[in-house]
């Protein structure tokens, strides 16, 4: 299986005053196209740092990260931003929707960013995604008019509307009750199964991780299994 994500000896050291705090100590992972991988580990083990590095939001201290064949670590900040725009979708624990925009408006904004403001997006794709996530009746609703589960589904819809090579989810059910967590996790599973969406998900929840194809365990900045 062709890897969509590959890291080699990835290290990340934060400099806090005069103290160096290693967050990643040589992480090697590979995620194939269409795989659904969960990353688990205790707080402070480096999961979020790893996700931020994979997502091009942080530059690692050493090592390599390849997304769909492109090496993030040799790129400038602008190039990493561009790669994120083209190939990565993000889902956050806190949903991170624009509160002033409707569900559809949030998707349109992502499309505008994707197309560099050159077009108004693909309405058919937008509707397809919203329908897939059972949000077709919520298109005109603003985030505050939606439940937590619905907001997270809108966030997922926004993340995949531009067909990213990889979807990175940071504790996507961390702010949801169990019922909504189940719905969101089933939808992620469905996206992976039906559309072959590659997903890397950070979670503390063993039940959420159990739905993934593979679980990567981290501890103290290293992959332990």
């Amino acid at each position, binding site marked *: 299986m062709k890897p969509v994500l590959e890291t080699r000896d990835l290290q990340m050291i934060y400099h806090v005053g005069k103290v160096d705090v290693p967050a990643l100590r040589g992480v090697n992972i590979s995620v194939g196209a269409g795989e659904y991988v969960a990353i688990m580990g205790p707080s402070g083990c480096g999961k979020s740092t790893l996700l*931020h590095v994979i*997502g091009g*939001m*942080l530059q690692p201290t050493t090592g390599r990260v390849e997304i769909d064949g492109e090496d993030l670590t040799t790129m400038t900040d*602008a190039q990493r*931003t*561009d*790669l*994120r*725009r*083209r190939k*990565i979708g*993000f889902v*956050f624990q806190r949903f*991170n*929707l*624009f509160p*002033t*925009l*409707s569900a*559809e*408006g949030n998707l*349109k*904004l*992502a499309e505008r*960013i*994707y197309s*560099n*403001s050159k077009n108004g997006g693909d309405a058919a794709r937008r509707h397809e995604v919203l329908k897939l996530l059972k949000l077709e009746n919520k298109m005109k609703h603003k985030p505050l008019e939606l439940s937590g589960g619905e907001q997270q589904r809108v966030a997922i819809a*926004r993340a995949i509307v531009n067909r990213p090579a990889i979807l990175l989810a940071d504790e996507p059910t961390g702010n949801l009750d169990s019922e909504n967590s189940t719905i969101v996790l089933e939808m992620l599973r469905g996206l992976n199964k039906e559309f072959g969406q590659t997903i890397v998900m950070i979670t503390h929840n063993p039940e959420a991780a159990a739905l993934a194809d593979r679980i990567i365990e981290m501890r103290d900045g290293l992959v332990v299994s």
Partner: protein
Amino acid sequence: MDNLIVENIKQRPLRTAISVVGVALGVILIVLMVGLARGMVRDSAERQGNVDAEIRFLPTEISSAAAANPLMMPARFAEVIMNGVQPTAEDPDLQAKPPIAGVSATTPVGEFIQNSESGIGFEYVDGIDFPSFSKTTRITMVAGRPLTDGKAPDSAYEVIVDRYYFDNNKDVNRQPLQLGSKIKTLGHEFSVVGVYEPSMLARIKMPLHTMQQLLGGAENCTFIMIRTTQPALAKSVKEALESNYPGYHAYLTSEIPALFSQGIRPLEIFLDVVIWLAVVISTLVILLAMYTTIIERTREIGILKSLGASKTFVVMTIEKEAALISALGVLFGFVVSVVGKYALEASTRLKIDIEPRWVLIATVVGIGCGLLGALYPALRAANLDVVEAISYE
């Protein structure tokens, strides 16, 4: 409208309103102040140009005392210029002066500047000798009667006014002017006894004698208007006047517009100051508003960047918001300026010219300053660290 920029503006209506008013203030400053200055100068120049007399004769040096009493020139010069003068038995020391050839009429004019009765701006009042003034200029009475010499007690406090003044002003009882109405000028009430056309020099004219009595400048005037027998003689008359009357200068009426232009130079400096003030106000208002916006929306900027928005996209989003606020400010500023123009013109004798050129300048200043003011906050937003921004509480 599902648009991030519009929704952002709607989300904080008070801040948007303050920003709009800030930009509008700059626009109003430019449009109204420039319009007022231009309007007053144009109006004055037009009224100076309506005088047919070819020459204005006045002292070379205008002393600071002239501000308090502008009647510093002997009014009898008007007679002397026409007929000349020789020493007499009563006054053997009198310096002989020949009559100036080519002069057909002369008239002494007293001109006083006072605060406008409305309290806004200032206005001129002329003191004239109507018989000689009517021979020297093309003044025509269109209603009522001409001024008398003002020497009889019952005719001292009479004025004639031009048509514009008559149609646009109120008397001391706040009633529309009619013949016989009382208006207040030089601290006294005067009866309006006539209306003249065309507008020339000051709109209000009283007997020169009355002005002399009120200002303590007995037998004096501010300048003398001189009409020549033929316009072609104006230059030679001017030279003869200046050689026979040292310390006095003769201006050709045709030179007056150029003299006004010279007088406008300090005004241009003042207008430049007004424009820069508008620039500073508009820029600062938008800078502060957008800076606050950026701090408030740090997290949203982080989300934009996490979605792959480039620095250019972030900068353009903020600049577009500033441009929209500025455009609203410019529009609001124009509305207030136009309303202000009509309100001021209706309640005062001020003239305000809203010229397309200055409307364009105000638009450029308003929107340009908005974009400039938003640039620093926009660049700061574009350079935010995405991980820190997205974690911002």
